[in-house]
């Protein structure tokens, strides 16, 4: 078991005919993921990689193939529309990989999907992976852009705002013999579809997740909010890491959401909140798995 997606989850890809979306859809197929449809308006009737049918709309794609989850790779100016289309089609999960969506678009999307059944992950995220049990974790569900082979099926949940730091943590876990239930990249934007806390709650309720790694970075207060909840409610060991101890205030560190403004969102404040919630915080990014293993 896992959270959000399983090996039999049927996935459609919005933007499958773009070079970025196409490349990663192919990698997901090779990983053994059930990529059952692509969506590119105006290209229905064509096939991706000869086997995956392409549709004009998410609604048609979902109806014809039973896809319940979407991976969004469409360019930033059109990404908010793509998200809303998937929500309108009633999908269970929408994972927006696209980087560079205007904040205003995401404010509107977030307000518009409030109360809907659809869960949004991202944008500006590496996606979601539930590793499979085959060689190099083959046969799992890979949505997004993470390298599949670094994973290993197991019982550790990973949630992170950063793509490459997620891979780093996963790699450390795998090389230490610890597999993952599901790895979730929630993305580096200031308006994320799901927060650390949303995902931690799912891990806490998942009988097959034994321990959790939560990776954060400067900016906002999502890590503090998660830490507060963990302190009162979480019954699983949690380790963590916060990037940006050396980041200068007022500068945006790559991710749109990674900025210390008005003295708020510092790494120090987040680390303090996490430690006081009993979270085992890694001193360096090389020790994320180690920090978890200490408390497992």
């Amino acid at each position, binding site marked *: 078991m896992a959270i959000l997606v399983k090996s039999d989850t049927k996935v459609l890809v919005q933007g499958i005919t773009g070079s970025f979306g196409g490349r990663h859809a192919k990698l997901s197929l090779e990983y053994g993921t059930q990529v059952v449809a692509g969506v590119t308006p105006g290209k229905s009737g064509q096939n991706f990689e000869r086997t995956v049918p392409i549709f004009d709309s998410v609604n048609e794609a979902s109806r014809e193939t039973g896809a319940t989850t979407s991976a969004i790779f469409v360019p930033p100016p059109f990404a908010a529309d793509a998200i809303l289309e998937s929500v309108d089609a009633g999908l269970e999960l929408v994972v927006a990989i696209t980087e560079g969506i205007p904040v205003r678009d995401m404010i509107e999307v977030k307000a518009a999907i409030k109360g809907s059944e659809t869960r949004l992950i991202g944008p500006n995220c590496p996606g979601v992976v539930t590793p499979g049990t085959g060689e190099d974790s083959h046969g799992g569900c890979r949505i997004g852009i993470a*390298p599949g082979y670094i994973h290993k099926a197991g019982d550790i949940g990973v949630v992170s705002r950063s793509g490459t730091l997620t891979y780093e943590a996963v790699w450390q876990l795998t090389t230490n013999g610890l597999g993952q239930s599901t790895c979730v990249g929630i993305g580096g934007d200031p308006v994320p579809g799901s927060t650390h806390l949303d995902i931690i709650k799912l891990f806490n309720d998942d009988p097959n997740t034994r321990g959790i790694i939560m990776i954060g970075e400067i900016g906002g207060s999502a890590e503090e909010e998660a830490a507060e909840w963990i302190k009162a409610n979480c019954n699983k060991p949690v380790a963590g890491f916060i990037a940006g101890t050396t980041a200068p205030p007022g500068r945006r560190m790559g991710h749109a959401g990674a900025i210390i403004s008005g003295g708020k969102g510092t790494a120090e404040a987040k680390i303090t909140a996490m430690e006081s919630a009993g979270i085992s915080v890694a001193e360096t990014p090389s020790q994320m798995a180690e920090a978890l293993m200490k408390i497992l």
Partner: protein
Amino acid sequence: MNLHEYQAKQLLARHRVEVPGGQPCTTADEARSIAEKLFADGQDMVVLKIQIHSGGRGKGLFKDGFKGGVHLCKSADSVHEKAKAMLGNTIVTKQTGEAGRLVQTLLVASAEKILDEFYLAVLLDRETSQPLIMASREGGVDIEEVAETNPDAIVKLQVDPLLGLQPFQARNLAKALGLSGKLIHSGAKLISGVYRTWWECDATMVEINPLCIVESPDGTQKIAAVDAKISIDGNALHRHKDIAEMRDLNEEAELEVEASKFDLNYIKLDGNVACLVNGAGLAMATMDAIKHYGGEPANFLDVGGSASTEQVTAAFQIVLKDPNVKAILVNIFGGIMNCNTIAEGVVAAAQATQLKLPLIVRLEGNNVVAGRKTLSNSGLTLIGADSMAEAARKVVAEAAV
């Protein structure tokens, strides 16, 4: 993207926000003629303000000893004299650092008679993902200071983004600031205009400090934005061609501008250990690791997800332009990124720049075997590392030699 005060006021005026009349200029003669017009319109005082992306202008000190970047003048001659002293001169304020900032543009505006000062800002509330209007009865001072010393003076208002700011909310906010009578309407109109500016221009922040009750020579009172600061969401510039043209490259660090041409995310820092990393989170964590092992990072540099050999070469060249750099750490965990692309880029860049500095490379991920092979076959002397910690330790040691 940050805007100058005069640009911010242009955007605000477009959204019917009252701003003091005035014009930007780049020469002392222009300053004089703008001032002459303002005096002819009945103003008895004009203000001359340097336009730089930095706070503390009024108390700044020019490198030749001339004091202050904001001046009140009673005559066009005085405007001309002060403008001449400031244009082309470099000012140091509490925010510019020692290097200071070259002054190339001035704003000449009517100096209103100010009766009271307030603070108003619109920003994103990250906890609720909704717009937040923040106002304070104390204006003209640092809002963070007010939050510390007199938090009750600050009023906050959440706005439903799908409805927008409602007129009654703006009126209530004006009243909460202590405005009364006709000024409630004047204040509400301004607050609505500021909100619309934030929303319609895709601003990440609009800050009016101070927001003032001003009195015209004829005795009428109104609410006006006497100073203004706006930052725009860089990801939304595709729908604001006019605002995109307001970008002032003179206000940005040279190497950062150079990096942005190659879609590289580079921020210069003060240390001597350069790093070149893929992914923003990993780049920050790499800086942290350098610091953890006793070094000081020279930069933040995210080469992004699809870095080509050309981009990596550019990244290398930019990092090497910083004279403080003593050693370089390349840390790549390839998800989207092909490790071999990085390896080819590293080799090409090291050869192109005839690199003499110690180079530590840590590669992991997508196509890593080919990447490592490319490095070991390159004939370059470089130091390999298996983990980030090992790489950080090694690069700090090399930089200290």
